[in-house]
């Protein structure tokens, strides 16, 4: 079975500073990769996904992520965060031949004014 590791459970960052949320997964075979965001008191929504092609993926709200196959990583970045980015962020993987998504434990991003 897959495992997904989000190394940082909490990340505080000042407004307008850059941020990177780390995600590593266990599989050495091809997988589909996702980042979801959960704003306070809301459901999860898709931020971005990698299925194939360019390893740099751009998502909503200025976020991007880079797929690194050799390091089995899919780190999420934003060059300048806003207060409204305060939320829980989840990394997920799905093997192409499986119906199952495997989620990390989440990273709580807090943007400090």
């Amino acid at each position: 079975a897959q495992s997904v590791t989000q190394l940082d459970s909490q990340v505080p960052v000042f407004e307008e500073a850059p941020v990177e949320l780390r995600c590593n997964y266990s599989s050495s075979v091809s997988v589909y990769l996702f980042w979801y965001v959960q704003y306070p008191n809301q459901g999860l929504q898709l931020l971005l996904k990698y299925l194939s092609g360019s390893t740099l993926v751009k998502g909503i709200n200025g976020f991007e992520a880079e797929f690194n196959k050799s390091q089995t990583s899919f780190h999420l970045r934003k060059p300048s965060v806003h207060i409204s980015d305060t939320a829980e962020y989840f990394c997920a993987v799905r093997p192409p031949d499986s119906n199952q998504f495997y989620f990390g434990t989440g990273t709580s991003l807090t943007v400090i004014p």
Partner: protein
Amino acid sequence: GAGVSQSPSNKVTEKGKDVELRCDPISGHTALYWYRQRLGQGLEFLIYFQGNSAPDKSGLPSDRFSAERTGESVSTLTIQRTQQEDSAVYLCASSLEASRAYEQYFGPGTRLTVT
């Protein structure tokens, strides 16, 4: 259009009672997933429905858990003889499997507390 809805939003029950959680997926979505999210943990896959195919039940933690789905509409997750370790947020997601390449749309969840 309407998103995925779940009911109830909160449920408090006594240990040993049965509970039923409901999920209304987005109309036309053929795939439906149930997940469990315990406090401080990631999402744990429970079960997956795809159209009229046999569901993938491999994530159900015990035989106290079961789920049904009628066609491509409403799904119910039933937990029998609830235990305190069943306390969690139960999330439902649906997906238009045919075209949007596995993108899931999540409901707001049902927070279950077993006392």
